[in-house]
């Protein structure tokens, strides 16, 4: 089995899985019908993308593992998503802030992944990027609307951006598997995306009349499986049915 490729795929897919679960939590709980539908649509897109990645990973693993096993049966430490995507839906500004900070990265990442030497990853990227373009529009629109809205919406959006900022640097960290994949021109060199990312995010924040956080201290760990407290609770929801009724199917 191609160990590094397997790990690399999971690193990408776990971001979409965990963020998809977070957005799915808003099903029936969105602040309005339209935003509720939008958040769950984004969740559905992300889960769909995850299926493509996990199906590929299961094929590479070449044992009895299925896409569902990979999604549902790992332990907390085995999930390699960035800390940003597991942060909770504290209020709508946090939901939008988290989505925005991830979407800008996600679009840049997929743009590069399209050029991967790996045919399947490149095909998945070409498919996903079309959907993610809509996600970016949605989250950017809302950051602007809340930032440039009332004093209260501005304050809440600013607070969310300030709190989530500490998780942005990790997007540009590389694991050993990432490095190996970059050297084979399969993976994306995320370090090269960093400057353009902050430029884009800063421009959009300014447009939204928000201040760019000055903090230079950043959290990390998710890519190595060391998570914030929130992930455990999220996984217990996500995995409940498979843990309670092993191998159940719809």
């Amino acid at each position, binding site marked *: 089995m191609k160990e590094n490729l397997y790990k690399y795929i999971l690193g990408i897919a776990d971001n979409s899985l965990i963020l998809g679960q977070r957005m799915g939590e808003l099903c029936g709980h969105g602040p309005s019908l*339209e935003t509720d*539908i939008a958040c769950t649509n984004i969740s*559905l897109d992300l889960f769909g993308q995850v299926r493509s990645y996990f199906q590929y990973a299961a094929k590479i693993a070449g044992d009895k593992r299925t896409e569902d096993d990979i999604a549902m049966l790992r332990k907390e430490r085995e999930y390699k998503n960035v800390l940003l995507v597991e942060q909770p839906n504290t209020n709508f500004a946090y939901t939008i802030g988290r989505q925005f900070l991830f979407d800008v990265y996600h679009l840049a990442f997929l743009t590069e992944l399209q050029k991967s030497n790996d045919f399947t990853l490149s095909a998945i990227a070409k498919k996903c990027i079309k959907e993610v373009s809509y996600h970016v529009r949605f989250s950017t*629109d809302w950051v602007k609307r809340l930032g440039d809205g009332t004093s209260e919406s501005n304050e809440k959006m600013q607070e969310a951006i300030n709190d989530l900022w500490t998780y942005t640097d990790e997007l540009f960290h590389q694991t050993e598997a990432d490095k190996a994949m970059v050297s084979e021109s399969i993976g994306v060199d995320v370090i090269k995306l960093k400057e353009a990312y902050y430029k884009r995010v800063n421009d959009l924040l300014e447009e939204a009349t928000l201040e760019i956080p000055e903090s230079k201290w950043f959290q990390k760990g998710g890519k190595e499986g060391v998570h914030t407290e929130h992930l455990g609770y999220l996984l217990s929801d996500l995995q409940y049915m498979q843990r309670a009724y092993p191998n159940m199917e719809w």
Partner: protein
Amino acid sequence: MTTVEQNIDQTLISILEQVSDPEIPVLSIMDMGVVRSAIIKNNIVEVEITPTYSGCPAMDVIGDDIIAAFSAIGKKANVELILSPAWTTDWITSKGRKALEDYGIAAPLNAIADKEALLGDKKLVKCTNCGSTNTKVVSQFGSTACKALFKCETCEEPFDYFKCL
């Protein structure tokens, strides 16, 4: 219109046309452009379909429906999901576009017009009820992954718009 090679055995088309998107029953999978190849190999029908949206729950059902449709005429079929080249709304046939409109879903505009309409600053999408373009986007995301929700300001009816992909 993007032209990408499709490899479909002419004798299979009439069967494939009987299968439709479960969420948009007026639209056959042929008119939707999701069937990329269909050939008979060793007496088995091999069909390749491509998803509209990655998370589209209709894809599993479409796969099952294809198998059932061939089984009804005594043929065994295999369905494979392929991702490349990625599906685009350009592959919806003109017959498919008409079926969408008749069903109450505005057909996708071109990519540039789509962006202008969805970001809310241009009135380009035609109401499927009264034909007016005095319409506005209510939500960029609608009842399924492929649609946005619009409202007509002339006749005041809400309607769906099939987003460009």
